[in-house]
């Protein structure tokens, strides 16, 4: 504290003499940043390695037999054994993992071991946009709903509106997502007929149609996320609203809405943003229930379908991609903290 004030006062005096050291400082800063980036990448690699190894090991424990999927029923033990041998399923685990890792490092995630033997990366690239879109839309909607709700709630903390919103979010949180989806379908799709039931319109077939089809599933996801975000944001907002700088802003004559969005929101968003990041990452992989309800061709459907048929190669590839996205999303969230709270920024000083 005191050191800084001395430095600042010194800075006021001798700005001219600081020029050469500024360049040196910048170079030092650049090196520090590069090193940090490198560390980050190394962390990412470590996570992916552990996740893929763990998944591989776990998958080997599941004994859904791809030979059964390939041959169907009615064949002899020997037949199935032969297929399993062909697929290399009797080779040692680490050897198979090393093989897979070798290819994966080159971007080759292999091909499905059951018909129609699709390339795993191709299938993931087809399914991923659906899940990503759903997750983003769902979370986006949730933000759209939860910010005003939380603000309203926090502003009237303890009042009637607050209690109603609290009860509402509590109820929504208690309803599991498949049930929420079913209720929404019953109401908006079958009931009022506003939305389609089990169709998907790809993005390249038109944005309007795509968003129309994505609305109901995204809303299903958004409900639970809204409830969670609202509660967390409300809590942080209430704390923030008691800060002196809010009072100071009022004393400047700033209006309530301005104070809410401009002053109160960002400092209160840490918990919410953290949860958002976790949710986004989690949703990419676990929209499976919503996908199943609405018959959508996303990652959840892909992974569950592959797991059901014993197609471990596809599951492995999909989990890797999901882990990658998860880590990337959380890294982005980490970076965003610097935007949200400048005190966190590791600036050159």
């Amino acid at each position, binding site marked *: *504290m*005191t050191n*800084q*004030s001395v430095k*600042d*006062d010194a*800075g*006021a005096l001798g*700005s001219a003499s600081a020029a050469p050291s500024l360049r040196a400082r910048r170079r030092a800063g650049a090196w520090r940043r590069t090193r940090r980036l490198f560390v980050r990448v190394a962390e990412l690699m470590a996570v992916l390695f552990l996740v893929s190894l763990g998944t591989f090991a776990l998958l080997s424990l599941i004994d859904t037999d791809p030979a059964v999927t390939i041959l169907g029923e009615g064949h002899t033990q020997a037949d199935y054994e032969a297929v399993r041998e062909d697929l290399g399923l009797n080779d040692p685990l680490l050897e198979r993992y090393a093989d897979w890792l070798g290819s994966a490092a080159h971007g080759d995630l292999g091909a499905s071991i059951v018909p129609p033997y699709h390339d795993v990366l191709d299938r993931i690239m087809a399914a991923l946009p659906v899940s990503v879109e759903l997750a983003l839309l769902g979370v986006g909607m949730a933000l759209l709903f939860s910010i005003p709700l939380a603000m309203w709630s926090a502003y009237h903390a303890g009042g009637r509106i607050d209690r109603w919103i609290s009860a509402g979010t509590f109820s929504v949180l208690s309803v599991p997502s498949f049930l929420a989806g079913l209720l929404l379908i019953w109401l908006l799709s079958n009931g009022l007929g506003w939305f389609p039931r089990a169709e998907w319109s790809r993005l390249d077939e038109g944005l309007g149609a795509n968003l129309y089809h994505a609305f109901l599933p995204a809303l299903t996801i958004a409900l639970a996320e809204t409830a969670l975000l609202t509660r967390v944001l409300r809590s942080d907002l209430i704390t923030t609203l008691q*800060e*002196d*700088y809010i*009072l*100071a*802003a*009022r*004393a*400047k*004559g*700033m*209006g309530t809405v*301005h104070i809410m969005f*401009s*002053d109160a929101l*960002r*400092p209160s968003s840490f918990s919410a943003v953290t949860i958002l990041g976790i949710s986004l990452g989690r949703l990419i992989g676990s929209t499976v229930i919503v996908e199943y309800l609405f018959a959508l061709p996303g990652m959840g459907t892909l992974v569950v379908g592959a797991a059901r048929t014993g197609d471990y190669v596809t599951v492995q590839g999909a989990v890797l991609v999901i882990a990658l996205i998860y880590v990337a999303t959380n890294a982005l969230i980490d970076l965003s903290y610097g935007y*949200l*709270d*400048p*005190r966190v920024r590791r600036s050159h000083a």
Partner: protein
Amino acid sequence: MGRPLLVVENLSAVITTGRGPLTAVDGVSLSLDRGEVLGIVGESGSGKSVLARTIMGLHCSDPRFALSGTVKLDGRDVLGLEPSQLRAMWGPEVGMVFQDPMTALNPVKRVGTHLVEAVRKHQQVTRRDAVGQALDLLDMVGIPDPRRRINQFPHQLSGGMRQRVVIAMALANRPKLLIADEPTTALDVTVQRQILDLLDRLRGELGMAVIMISHDLGVVAGRTDRVAVMYGGEIVETADARSLFDAPRHPYASALLAAIPSLKGAPHQRLAAIDGTPPDLVMPPSGCRFAARCDAVHDDCRVQPPQLIFDGTHGTACHYPVNPLISTASNTSGDT
């Protein structure tokens, strides 16, 4: 001189707490002329901050506060204003400097933003002009290299710098009245002096009236025209600064002055602290609120609450003031 800028009459603020209604401000009256500096002195819990904020009108829409009395700023009763009128008033008519510069500035907002948004709220100017004004403000409050500072975040400034920004923020729209609530309490001693000098200078330049609130007599000495001493939610003594410091009449004011450590005193001399604690304002004692801690207490002090009685411009609320004065008690005082 014309009509006083600020006239507070019988202002009371009662806060609903878990334990019951707490009378933070009880029947306070004061007035302030344009350009005048009033110092309000009192210990923690005396109600001075609540008084300041109530005068400003910050508690008007708070359902926990029950306000009575009037606060006339330039003839308009602040307590009767609509929220939009209050918001229009905060900034151009009255501004507040807060105690803790660490928390009075929003950590996620740049210094410049704090100032620019204040300017643009009350003036129809372009962003560019507003930024220009912000730079001028930073200069005015004595911040060197304003072009660099304007884009920095509060945590990148020292405590003193930050308080200067808070002041700049309060002055952005040239208010007629500046309320400074313990403006130096959170700062180092050397910086305190700088800030107080700054406030002096600005007052002179802008011709503002100032209410300076502090628990520290040293802050108030020599920099105010008038002083009011608060205790237990009431004003117990008020006078022009000179008179009060030369000859305080209320035992509390007198004790406060006596408690200031002096360089002239003998070494290892004990601090003349005031025994006891402030009164419970939910259930205030009957009679004089200072009675429990007063050295010169008499029996009727505990029964009859004293009124603020003026001798010229010097008001005292005590049955047995410590300096010669017409007392309200029937017996004349025999003590010092």
